[in-house]
């Protein structure tokens, strides 16, 4: 413990307090919604907060009872209890303990990466299904109806009739719960829009609790009439510390039990990992969470929570972000959130049991709605029709069957859609297990270069992520997809997340080699596939990539023209350069050129030799059109003379006056004398003082090339600056 820890302690205590204000009603509500005693939720949050703050590997996350588990636990309680809810609860506790062991093992073996194998639209669909589940299940308690049963689909169909039913209510007793529920819901909806800082200080769920408890006191204390039917109030055990329930391991070998253990483990790990990822993005200190360590801690917390009768512990995103917003800065906040919860249930047990269920249900209806909000599915469809379909398939199957099957069908649908889009099953089956990512540090610049081949989708994204993880975040990373035939939405989204992270740390990420790929929509996360070979260079791609948009911006900046589509009208001109002597030029694309046609940048696709025409290479070039004739020459780094082997007959021209220049550059050309007289003072100084490029002259045009690959947006800017300077220098002489 160092001094910063103590200095930040008051801040963390405060933040932990604010979080506990949300955690209390949510934990109670989630437990009720899950069909277990309300206290189980609070116990989970207390255990989670204490255990994970000591053993966890993340910094700002809050752990406790989470909304993702509601459906799984509720079905576990009903299935295992065979009608008896309390028996079901005891069996479920055993399942929670078993899943805790599994999670701990996941952490030990560093299996956190497993969550990468789920397509992001499937996860979205799953979350929406959970949201719909919570919404429908809690809708009835919110309007004071507690004895409804049936599947989620049945309940959804039941909603309209129960709303109509409200209008037949006559007595105040009947209407009262609805009024509390609706007012609570309104508080949830209105609170975020209120700017008053005193209102803001207390989170909406706590306002609802205060409102519900105050109303209760008013009725009983002032009016002296019973507040509400007993079954619409929270029941807490008389002494929570002596009445610990005993987990029942009696069904441990049954298939239902095992399926439930897996479902719980699956949802806990997914929810936890997604939350950690999201919270890391919010961290002002830009720390990286240790996922394996966190999983171990969560596993341990689940084991303990199960033994004392608590629900499962997960990392929760909403409470974590409240923690960040209140300037929590380390794990102490999570600890104090648990501490205050413990304090609340010891000190305010009586008050807590006065909270009306409709109020708690309203909080959950709101969270359920947010998870399932229609805008999520609209967003999915915007990324691509296929993503929307995957989303819907997962959603419907999860609602009609169960979570595991829903996710399974979602993954299956994603895979089939990928196969159909590519019209190629082999691409996937043949390459799925092969290492497809190569990474190395580019010597001259220190940039990390990553090349991905075959295909890159949710099936093998972990290989790419593994490599990305090893890069210090202040570096410049270039990902080249030109050897890759298909990139899916999950990968694009992951890369955009990574880009955000690396940007915050001062690094940057650029993607090259995707420009000619076909996207279905203009969304930055849309999947991209390589078009059939015969269409290359002719078909216009309506949706630009990030790099193309950068190029477009750059050309407006310079007031140049941008032509993203492929064309082959440069071929004759380029053939005059020695560089292309043995190469076949296919087409150029992504051209930006000045209005007066004196300078132009473009990507070029070409092949070396006839036999590998299919295996084309893509490289970026800059062309400078000069006003005056200059000698024909080729200038390269001394060590990279391989580019112009065709000139094997010519020797390196050494200029005696400039030994340094001659040492660093490899200069070749036929007319030795003319070349020497051209490379004088200013020209030599220019090349010596600028970064190396391959520069070739055909007499009136200069060809400039940086590397044997496409240039990234930053590199293009440097290239153009170099070209412009060189051009103005040469027109001066």
């Amino acid at each position, binding site marked *: 413990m160092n001094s910063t820890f103590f200095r930040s302690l008051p801040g963390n205590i405060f933040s932990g307090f604010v979080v506990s204000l949300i955690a209390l009603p949510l934990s109670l509500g989630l437990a009720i919604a899950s069909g277990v005693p309300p206290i189980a939720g609070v116990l989970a949050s207390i255990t989670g907060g204490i255990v994970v703050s000591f053993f966890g590997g993340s910094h700002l996350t809050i752990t406790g009872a989470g909304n993702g588990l509601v459906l799984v636990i509720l079905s576990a309680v009903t299935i295992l209890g065979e009608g008896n809810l309390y028996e079901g609860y005891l069996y479920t506790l055993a399942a929670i303990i078993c899943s805790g062991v599994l999670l701990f093992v996941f952490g030990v073996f*560093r299996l956190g990466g497993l969550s990468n194998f789920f397509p992001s639209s499937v996860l979205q669909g799953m979350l929406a299904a959970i949201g719909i589940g919570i919404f429908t299940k809690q809708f009835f308690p919110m309007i004071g109806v507690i004895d409804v049963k049936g599947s989620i689909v049945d309940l959804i169909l039941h909603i309209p009739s129960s709303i109509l039913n409200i209008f037949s209510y006559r007595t105040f007793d009947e209407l009262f719960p609805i009024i509390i529920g609706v007012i609570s819901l309104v508080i949830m909806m209105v609170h975020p829009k209120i700017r008053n800082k005193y209102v803001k200080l207390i989170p909406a769920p706590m306002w609802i609790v205060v409102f519900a408890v105050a109303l209760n006191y008013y009725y009983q204390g002032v009016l002296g009439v019973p507040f509400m039917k007993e079954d619409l109030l929270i029941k807490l055990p008389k002494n929570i510390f002596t009445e610990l329930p005993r987990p029942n391991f009696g069904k441990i070998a049954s298939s239902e039990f095992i399926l439930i253990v897996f479902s719980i483990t699956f949802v806990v790990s997914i929810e936890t990992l997604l939350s950690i990822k999201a919270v890391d993005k919010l961290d002002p200190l830009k720390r990286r969470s240790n996922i394996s360590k966190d999983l171990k801690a969560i596993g341990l917390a689940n084991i303990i929570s199960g033994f004392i009768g608590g629900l499962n512990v997960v990392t929760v995103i909403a409470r974590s972000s409240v923690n960040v917003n209140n300037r929590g800065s380390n794990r102490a906040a999570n600890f104090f959130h648990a501490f205050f919860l413990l304090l609340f249930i010891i000190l305010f047990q009586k008050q807590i049991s006065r909270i009306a269920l409709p109020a708690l249900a309203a909080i959950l209806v709101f969270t359920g709605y947010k998870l399932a909000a229609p805008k999520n599915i609209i967003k999915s469809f915007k990324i691509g029709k296929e993503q929307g379909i995957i989303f819907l398939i997962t959603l419907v199957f999860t609602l009609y069957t169960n979570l595991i099957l829903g996710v399974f069908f979602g993954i299956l649908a994603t895979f089939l859609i990928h196969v159909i889009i590519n019209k190629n099953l082999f691409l996937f089956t043949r390459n799925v297990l092969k*290492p497809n990512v*190569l990474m190395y540090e580019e010597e001259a610049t220190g940039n990390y270069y990553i090349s991905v081949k075959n295909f890159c989708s949710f099936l093998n994204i972990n290989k790419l992520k593994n490599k990305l993880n*090893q890069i210090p975040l202040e570096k410049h990373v270039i990902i080249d997809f030109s050897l890759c035939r298909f990139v899916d939405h999950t990968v694009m989204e992951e890369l955009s997340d990574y880009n955000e992270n690396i940007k915050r740390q001062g690094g940057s990420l650029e993607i090259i080699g995707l420009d000619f790929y076909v996207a279905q929509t203009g969304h930055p996360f849309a999947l991209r596939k390589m078009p059939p070979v015969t269409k290359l260079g002719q078909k216009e791609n309506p949706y630009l990539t990030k790099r193309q948009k950068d190029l477009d911006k750059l050309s407006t900046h310079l007031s140049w023209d941008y032509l993203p589509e492929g064309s082959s009208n440069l071929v004759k001109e380029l053939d005059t350069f020695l560089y292309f002597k043995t190469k076949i030029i296919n087409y150029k694309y992504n051209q930006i050129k000045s209005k007066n046609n004196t300078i132009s940048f473009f990507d070029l696709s070409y092949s070396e030799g006839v*036999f*590998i025409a299919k295996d084309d290479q893509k490289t970026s070039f800059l062309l400078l059109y000069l006003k005056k004739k200059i000698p024909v020459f080729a200038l390269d780094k001394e060590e990279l003379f*391989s580019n112009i082997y065709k000139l094997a007959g010519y020797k390196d021209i050494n200029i005696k006056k400039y030994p340094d220049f001659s040492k660093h550059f490899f200069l070749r050309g036929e007319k030795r004398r003319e070349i020497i007289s051209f490379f004088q003072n200013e020209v030599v100084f220019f090349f010596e003082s600028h970064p190396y490029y391959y520069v070739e002259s055909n007499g009136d045009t200069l060809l400039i090339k940086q590397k044997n*690959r496409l240039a990234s947006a930053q590199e293009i800017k440097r290239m153009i600056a170099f070209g412009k300077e060189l051009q103005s220098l040469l027109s001066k002489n």
Partner: protein
Amino acid sequence: MKEAKKFSCILMGFAFSPKVKVNVLEALRLSNYMKAKLILFHVGEKTKIKEESIDKIIKESEEIPPSISIKWEEGTPTKTLLTACKTYNVDLLLLGALQRENALNFYIGSIARKLTRKAPCSVLLLINLIEEKNIWEHIVVNALKNKLTVQTIETSFNIANVLSSKKITLVEEISQEKVTPVEDEKSLLEALAEKETLKKKSAIYSKDILEKIPNKIKDKLQIKIQNIFGKRGYSIGHYAKVVRADLLVMSIARNKSLFPLFSFSKDLEYILLELPTNVLILKYKKE
């Protein structure tokens, strides 16, 4: 200590495919450069037309190796070629191969793979040939540290010299297993430091080997040592493709002891499935 390889007898197995001309021309060129005798070997019936077309190709070529002989034999391709390698005491077997196998030409490809695995001599698989001139500009060598590395590197330099290549890259793969897995900032720093040490070690090792290579060979070449991060034995093919190498040199121990055979042949299988460029597989006989 084994010596660097010199190839004095080259056998080219040819079939009458559209690529026959380039393949034969390349065989002529290589054996001329290496001053090796060349055996052009066809498994199949000898007919007048076939004979004439081969003769025509040989006459067209400007390259004249010390000796050329054409053999025709019937039988199963793999068996016949393997026997031929033994009978004529061949050092290097040239095979035209397909870059990427699909279901249709899987059979043809599998012959090349089978031969590569079983051949008693080194094998050169040719995939992207150009009819025009010298294409052996850039050679990528697997410098993975093992008991064959020294010879592999020496042989590669000799070949680079003979083929007047311009550039040679020694690739060492930094294996993931040797480095702390990255989980947070602390482990990232640890991993980076470990990688740095590994890099330095491999640089020293490669430099030691380079010392032994005569300067007159080294001077003509641009030499690069490249560390890549990836799975051992797998990423080198990808690298060769990315840098557009013209030749990838790998070595394989024909050693009966279980371990090296196992670890090496796995790399080889991978390279064979997805030939990134022309691949030379050096085989050393059992000591």
